[in-house]
């Protein structure tokens, strides 16, 4: 494996993770979950996976253009993190954003319609796969430039602190983003000013085709936080309980003490970087199969809930069937929806142009 092994609990400072693998279920944040809440965590992960699979089929059928970065295999990270959101917590992420969008509660019909470039898309067909947004759900995108969203995440935290709101921002990035200068600048600002932001590194081992080992100097990605005097932690991201237990600790420190942190979550994607990635040269089939077999987040959690008696085989099957149906319905909705017209191209550019009755500027905003 071309990723540095995530240190286990007994290999490193105890303070760095909340709990040893396997104990996460007992952490209060998880133990207090109701049966329905546990099923919902599972359901969300299944729904994400089925949506991603359906969108891949649509892409292959040429219904979707441009980029498609699938979240398959990483579901526990978005679901675990977003399940902890309070009313003043906010999320921003990069372009592998479908999981986060569904995890915060966006409806799959506008998500699929966005992929199809339809006017009924969540961004009116103007953003595409990398630009899902839902301000009303405290979800701020969906961003295309690697690392570019991280200063924005620091900004969300800045605003929360300025307004004296008790909340935290979770700013997600991949293992490839950690070397961008803007990320370091955002770390420094957050640490310098004690801003309540958790920088979450979804480490799936590869930036496109370049492994972490071939990209990043130093002993660990989250450990770079030490250079800025920031808290940091690591987490086995294939277990949604572990994600919750680890993130809960850091979110609490952020909300209550304005302490930022960097959390590196070990995860994996089964598909290529995007649909354009032939995924033939930088990793082995065996590696992917190993993850599917032993570390699949949906499989692991489903088994846990079956063992607990929270899920039955029948219910698990039903959840799956419903997820497939939901994704198909979303695709039908997308297919049937109209495209924007050329007249729509210049809308949503300027607030003033879209609110003409409140416009105070004069002159031409657009040119031809």
């Amino acid at each position, binding site marked *: 494996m071309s990723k540095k092994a995530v240190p286990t609990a007994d290999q490193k400072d105890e303070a760095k993770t909340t709990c040893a693998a396997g104990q996460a279920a007992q952490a209060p944040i998880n133990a207090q979950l109701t049966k329905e809440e546990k099923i919902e965590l599972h359901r969300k992960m299944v729904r994400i996976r089925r949506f991603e699979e359906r969108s891949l089929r649509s892409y292959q059928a040429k219904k979707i253009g441009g980029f498609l970065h699938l979240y398959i295999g990483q579901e526990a990270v978005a679901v675990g993190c977003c399940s902890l959101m309070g009313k003043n917590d906010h999320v921003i992420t990069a372009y592998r954003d479908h999981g986060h969008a569904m995890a915060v509660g966006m409806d799959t019909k506008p998500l699929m319609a966005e992929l199809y470039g339809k006017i009924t898309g969540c961004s009116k067909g103007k953003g595409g796969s990398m630009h899902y947004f839902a301000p009303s759900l405290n979800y701020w*995108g969906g961003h295309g430039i690697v690392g570019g969203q991280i200063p924005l995440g620091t*900004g969300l935290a800045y605003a*929360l602190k300025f307004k004296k709101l008790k909340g935290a921002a979770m700013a997600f990035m991949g293992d490839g983003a950690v070397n961008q200068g803007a990320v370091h600048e955002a770390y420094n600002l957050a640490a310098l000013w004690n801003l309540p932001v958790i920088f979450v590194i979804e480490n799936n081992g590869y930036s496109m085709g370049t492994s972490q080992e071939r990209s990043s100097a130093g002993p660990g990605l989250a450990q770079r936080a030490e250079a800025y005097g920031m808290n940091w932690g690591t987490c086995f991201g294939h277990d949604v309980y572990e994600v919750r237990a680890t993130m809960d600790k850091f979110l609490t420190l952020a909300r209550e003490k304005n302490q930022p942190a960097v959390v590196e979550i070990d995860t994996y994607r089964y598909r290529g970087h995007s649909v354009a990635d032939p995924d033939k040269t930088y990793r082995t089939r065996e590696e992917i199969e190993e993850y599917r077999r032993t570390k699949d987040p949906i499989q692991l959690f489903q088994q846990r809930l079956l063992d607990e008696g929270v899920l039955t085989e029948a219910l698990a099957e039903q959840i799956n069937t419903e997820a497939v149906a939901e994704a198909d319905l979303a695709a039908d909705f997308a297919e049937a929806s109209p495209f924007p017209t050329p007249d729509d191209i210049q809308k*949503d*550019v300027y607030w003033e142009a879209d609110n003409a009755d409140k416009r105070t500027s004069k*002159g031409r*905003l657009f040119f031809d």
Partner: protein
Amino acid sequence: MSVLTYREAIRAALAEELTRDENVVLMGEEVAQFHGAYKVSEGLLEKFGPDRIVDTPISEAGFIGMGVGASMLGIRPVMELMFWSFYSVAFDQILNNAANVRYMSGGLINCPIVIRGPANGGTNVGATHSHTPENVLANHPGVKVIVPSTAADAKGLLKSAIRDNDPCFFLENTLLYGEKGEVSDDPELLIPLGLADVKRQGTDLTIVTYGRCVLHSLAAAEILEKEHDISVEIVDLRTIRPLDIDTVLASVKKTHRVLIVEEQKPFASVGSQIAYMIQREAFDELDGPIHRLATIDAPAIYSPPVEVEQLPNPQRVLKAALAAVA
């Protein structure tokens, strides 16, 4: 009314808007304890405190991106670039995030930020500190670009920019900071963006210009009047985007001759766009080709007396105007 310097006028605008709206925050390098690299923010820290006047580390990409993110949650940041030349360090944040988040979200977000600071040559600070990027900025739909030439314009326009709900980029000039002018004391006097101003009436030649070149053009116009009997009309654009092309065209219809004067490298400058629009929309009004005086096409030279010759200056404007009416 008071007589204020351009610097004091900007400071007054900042103070008034900081007072008016508790969500306005001034942030940037040396804006607080140092009182501003060019003393624009002098006294503001004492008046508004460190939560409103914020010294940032040297991290343009970081703090401008941070401001964009904060503006999504209701903060109205006014971010100072010590030199607009440093915009290239934050290019992605300014022109991918600030300019585009509204569009990419289908209108769900708007980004009411202001980025302000000096954008000019003429101070012997060399090629990396002398950029005038108004053309580069204005090339991006979603942003507004303002370049005031006088103290009164600076105050009224900055107030409008701070209250504007779109990202506004406000380009000042270190060589204008000390220029005095009459400025209104009315805290509700705003100059709308996108409104040009005829700084001098004339009949023989229209000079379309903005920023410090307005002053050069006024100086040249005096000589043209007295020594050459040429009556020059000077249209100060004030805002590059949105653009008041109508005031320009009205002047062209009057004089039939155009000289664009801009402190810009020639290729794809602001004037290039203006020239296209004038000939497209008022071709039959022109008695000759549109002329343009720009910065001599090389990186900014250091050598002090030579840099004066690289930029537009009153002598060069005079020569260009004579050529334009010949």
